[in-house]
């Protein structure tokens, strides 16, 4: 923590070596975050770039109370959401349907996929599902917060998440990760 505080101080002084060090320390993890929200590595790198520019721009607002990684991660998530909203390719995919009947899915399947394969499966979800799944299952936001972040109701968020979850579990268990079969079932 203290090391990070010193790093932040040096970055605020505009020391290039410190800025590079901060980037190198957090960029791989943050690219993983960005990758989960986008459909291509290039988009993920674009988000990463925008995100780190914002990190350095607003670094003076980091209150040093919380963990630096969490603060940067939050900026990355916000940047990714803005990127999705602004990017024409994602806008239509982000439309959410009216909440329908919840799909009761209480399965807790074992995940016999490596991290990369799981990340790829998440990215195969429709953008709306993908976003909500990332926000709820991985970032840990609740549905009220997700609803406010995405401008949808809490119920819509919950419903969309259940559908995303069901779809993902289907891919993992029934089809062994073959998403095409799942889409056909839908």
């Amino acid at each position, binding site marked *: 923590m203290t090391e990070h505080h010193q790093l932040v101080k040096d970055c605020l002084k505009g020391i290039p070596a410190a800025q590079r060090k901060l980037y190198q320390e957090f960029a791989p993890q943050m690219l993983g975050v960005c990758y989960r929200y986008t459909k291509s590595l290039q988009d993920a790198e674009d988000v990463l770039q925008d995100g780190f520019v914002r990190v350095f721009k607003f670094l003076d607002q980091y209150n040093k109370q919380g963990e630096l990684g969490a603060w940067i991660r939050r900026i990355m998530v916000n940047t990714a959401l803005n990127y999705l909203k602004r990017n024409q390719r994602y806008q239509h995919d982000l439309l959410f349907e009216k909440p329908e009947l919840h799909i009761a899915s209480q399965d807790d399947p074992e995940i016999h996929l490596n991290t990369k394969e799981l*990340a790829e499966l998440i990215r195969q979800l429709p953008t709306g599902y993908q976003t909500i799944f990332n926000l709820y299952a991985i970032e840990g936001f609740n549905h009220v*917060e997700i609803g*406010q972040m995405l*401008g949808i109701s809490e119920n819509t968020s919950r419903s969309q998440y259940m559908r995303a979850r069901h779809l993902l579990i289907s891919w993992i268990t029934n089809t062994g990760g073959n998403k095409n079969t799942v889409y056909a079932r839908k």
Partner: protein
Amino acid sequence: MQENEFEKRVRKQMDGFSLVPNEAVWKQVEARIGEEKKRRTLLFWFFGALLLVGGITCWMIESRDNVTTDVSIAKSKPATIISNKAAQQINDTNKTVESISALTKRRVHDNKNLNLNKQTYTTIKTGVRSSVNNEPRSSKETERVLASNTAVATSSLKPSKISSVVNNESKETALHKYYKSTEQLKADSLQRTLEISKKTTLIDTSKAASKVAVIKHHEHKWKLGLTAFCGVSGNTNGIDLISAKSVQADAFYSFSSSPAASAAVPVVIPKLTYKRSASYGFGIFGQKEMGRRIAISFGINYHYFSSKSTIGNRFDSSQSLYDTALQKQTTVKSFYKVGQSSSFNNKYKVIQLPVNLSYRLNKNASKPLLFSLGLSPSFLIASKALYVNRYQGIYYEEKQQFKNFLLFGQSGLLFTALDSKKYQLSLGPVVQYDFNSMSKWQTQTNQHLTFIGIKSNITFK
């Protein structure tokens, strides 16, 4: 929903997920950081240079004005210079004339002796003759000598260099009768000119000096004044200064809950539009002349801005909202839906500290036409304005959407309507523009306050 094992497993697995970014990403980040830094540095130096250039310009103008004042003083007392020259000439003339007079006296004395010798010689030669008989001859001889002296005097002196001293001396000799008739008149004339010029000089110089002193005293004296202004104000998104059409919540798209996926149409969050509304303000200022045409003023103003927004129905129900943009929990007692059914008057109260440079466009200093340009560091002391919660699609009052510090730029013209001994009343059009957006960056919107109106100043002398 109760979190089960699946979410935990996914989260655990994804927490360790990382990818090595392309090296080009860092280079681009570095370049953009550099650009940002350059932009800030450039802005800093721009304002620094602006101040420096402004200061140097004021200093140069002031210096030039001082030179101009000296010249004007000189122009106002040409008689002094002339009289000084004339006095010098007179002195020279006096010396010359004195020497001539001495020479003349000596030669007259010699002539008398000569006449006396001639008389003695005649007496011896022709017998005793009355000394009275010698008078004409003596007189002729004397005239001849004096004529010679006159020639010497006139050849060595310019007529204009003859002073009144000559006049006094000439009274004693016949030579000076000649002078009296020609050159002495000129000398008298010159003397009179000198005296007149001396008198005139005294009057003019003293008047000019006192006038300059008064002017300079007024120029460098701080003058206090009152200001009041009224007009219309509005919000712009930073592009259109005049129309005040307004700010929208950027190009954010709503995630509509459309009835069916097939009928899903992207819904843009309705713009929160702002129409111009009344604005007024008042304050005090101190003004100091920096030169003949430039003045600087400092002041403090209270400025009330307002703008009208068209909105939907009001709902008086308390709601607790988490605003992800501002990242804060808000409890609102009432909120407005999107619509066209009602109007809301947004109010902003600002304390401004204006610094203005004014330049006199016309030559008439008593009724100046001033062009003013300046900056106003300002503080938003109160606001009652709507905030767009783009995630909820509702409007409500939110004080924390704004920054406290604003930087206004202002410009205007001031005509002098009334100029009395005690005060000067001037009025004219004025515009103000808020350079830095009043919205916090988190809101991702731009709101720049504008003001167009009439300003009136009363400056006490």
